[in-house]
């Protein structure tokens, strides 16, 4: 089906018409018989790309499936998500990666790109079959033990070296387990001291980030730092990028989550496990540093760390409750709320263009111009949305934004030339034909 999007504001600039032919490609001239969407007043961005999504399938289909996660992603304006490897079984073989990729195609709402585990079973000891995952139909290029840190420096070094052969990237969950103990669940500071919660100190992240950027330099390989949460990590990244700019032999990128841009550790005072996330929410000064780093490019991308959990997995004592919160449907609104001065071009940069580049997704994050695959999201910049967790497409309800008002609203999402979200609701799902 062909499509005409009339009068959209491209990246927040002057209005223009977008023409999409029935191959799902932007073209110069309106195709005949095309459906027309009036996009006056809406901002058009390249479809959003999430570097960090937990879809829970296989293994915990009660919390999320690839289909429901894809629905949530489409509603949030995403056209591609990277599905983290900490499923059950772990995505550490070519077969497991291919299965996730196939289920994503069957869902047909976003490009679901599997992330491969760095180590077998996420055990941190032996490398997973990185090359076979890359050679599979899934074409895995991003590898992560997310949920766990590749804490052994030797293993991390070998992983960085190995993926160089095919341009892979290692996405690190930076958490030194000897500094953040096994029960760590709350930012270590005055509040954790008063509440008696095991602290997760910022330094446990920073020492791994510092180590890994040096390993990236040593290996000349690509390092991506997942969910950066502290001002100290930002300082290390800023230094590393400055050095890399001089000698050009290392390639370090980083992401921040929407929740780390807006929520602070104070929210844990009531022991509500909805706000239990890994890495933990940090104090306001860290939040400010993360915002500044995103705006100035020290942090390259926003990634949701969408982490659905069944209700009963959150209804334990705080220390025992599962880590994580939902994020796909609210990410854009949170970014707009946290950084209202960020230009739409910068929003596109941090939520689509750069994530697509990091993940090596050639069809994503492209200019809204003839010849590009038609992945686009249309946003009402003047609307606000009061979040209702019960209205989510996700199977889970661990939504920290429930009842909060967020800026802007995703109105339409187009994936591969086809409307997946129309007027803020899911359009009919169907198989992806590309």
């Amino acid at each position, binding site marked *: 089906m062909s499509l005409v999007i009339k009068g959209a504001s491209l990246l927040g600039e002057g209005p223009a018409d977008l023409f999409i032919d029935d191959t799902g490609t932007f073209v110069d001239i309106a195709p005949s018989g095309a459906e027309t969407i009036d996009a006056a007043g809406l901002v058009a961005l390249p479809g959003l790309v999430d570097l960090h999504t937990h879809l829970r399938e296989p293994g915990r289909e009660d919390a999320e499936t690839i289909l429901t996660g894809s629905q949530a992603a489409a509603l949030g304006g995403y056209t591609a998500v990277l599905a983290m490897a900490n499923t059950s079984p772990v995505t550490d073989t070519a077969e497991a990666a291919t299965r996730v990729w196939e289920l994503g195609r069957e869902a047909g709402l976003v490009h679901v790109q599997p992330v491969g585990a760095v180590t077998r079973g996420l055990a941190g000891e032996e490398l997973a079959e990185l090359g076979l995952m890359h050679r599979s139909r899934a074409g895995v290029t991003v590898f992560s033990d997310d949920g766990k840190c590749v804490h052994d420096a030797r293993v991390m070094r070998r992983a960085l070296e190995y993926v160089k052969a095919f341009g892979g990237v290692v996405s690190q969950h930076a958490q030194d387990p000897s500094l953040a103990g096994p029960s760590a669940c709350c930012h*270590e*500071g*005055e*509040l*954790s*001291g*008063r*509440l*008696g*919660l*095991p*602290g997760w*100190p910022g330094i446990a992240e920073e020492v791994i980030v510092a180590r890994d950027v040096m390993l990236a330099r040593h290996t000349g390989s690509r390092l991506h730092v997942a969910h950066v949460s502290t001002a100290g990590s930002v300082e290390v990244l800023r230094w590393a990028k400055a050095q890399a700019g001089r000698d050009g032999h290392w390639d370090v990128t980083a992401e921040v989550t929407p929740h780390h841009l807006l929520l602070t550790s104070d929210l844990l005072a*009531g*022991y509500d*496990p909805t706000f239990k996330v890994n890495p933990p929410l940090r104090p306001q000064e860290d939040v400010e540093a993360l915002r500044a780093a995103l705006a100035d490019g020290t942090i390259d991308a926003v990634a949701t760390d969408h982490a659905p959990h069944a209700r*009963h*997995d959150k*209804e*334990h*004592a*705080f*220390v*025992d409750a599962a880590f994580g919160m939902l994020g796909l449907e609210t990410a854009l609104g949170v970014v707009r709320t946290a950084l209202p001065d960020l230009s739409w071009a910068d929003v596109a940069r941090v939520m689509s263009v750069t994530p697509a580049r990091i993940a090596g997704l050639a069809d994503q994050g492209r200019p809204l111009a003839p010849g590009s695959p038609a992945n686009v999201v249309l946003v009402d910049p003047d609307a606000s949305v009061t979040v209702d967790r019960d209205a989510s497409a996700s199977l889970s309800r661990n939504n920290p934004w429930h009842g909060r008002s967020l800026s802007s609203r995703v109105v339409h999402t187009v994936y591969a030339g086809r409307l997946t979200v129309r007027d803020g609701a899911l359009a009919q799902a169907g198989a992806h034909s590309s």
Partner: protein
Amino acid sequence: MKHLLSIDDLSTDDIHQLFETAADMHDVQRREVKKLPALRGRTVVNMFFEDSTRTRSSFEIAGKWLSADVINVSAKGSSASKGESLRDTVLTVCAMGVDGLVIRHPASGAAVQVSEWVDAAVVNAGDGMHEHPTQALLDAYTLQRHLGSLEGRHVAIIGDLTHSRVFRSNVQCLTRLGARVTVVAPPTLMPSGIVAWSAAAGFETSYDVDAVLPDADAVMMLRVQRERMSGAFFPSAREYTVGYGLTRNRLALLKPDVPICHPGPMNRGLEIAADAADAAQSVVLEQVSSGLAIRMAVLYHLLAGSPEGGIA
């Protein structure tokens, strides 16, 4: 007050009122028939997810002497081992018509969370490293009986502060009653952020036991959990005792008749020497009987009288 989860739930007046009631309850302990009808027809469940002898027994006797029907549920490990959530576990118990739930749990905040799920009055009998409010009340009550008013009195709390719920409740309770509190521990056993916290809450910190003891009007020793010794918190038991233990030599630093508290169980020879534990000014056993009176007072105020409970 519907629940007692933290000392922060209590005003200064509430604490004094509980002490007055506790004094009456203390008198009951001296009677031949130790029984009051106050909680007749009420059901109290002691739900302990963690081992405890003295606290569980104290709550059990307190409830029984007030004529409540008291049931002990040893829930240690049950929710985790059988995969049931904490919410489901407590809702199941409370569905049996429970009026009061006394909960001990190894996780900080568990009692706070439970209070949001159930209709019963919840008493926090110790939650992880967070709080143990009845212990703080019984400690302050015991000290008040010895010192009169706590206003302006200097209390030293010494030991493993990081992992101590007793400390967290006591520092609130004692400062609220006007005491000057100094907490003493090696830096590795000071909670994170204690500098800002102590400044805001109005207590002092020190690494020097010998400097603090001569000025103290009361000394509260905290138990050192032996498993901490392998966690690089301090080099050895011997070094801890030399640096922070209430040794025989340090006993001589104290002013005469300064009461010595310990929440028990005591590690004799580690944080407290036998000479100190058994000294004439040791109030360790008195704390136990005070604890019974305090717990009777707490259950009485929460569960007797109006259906809403509360301190009248």
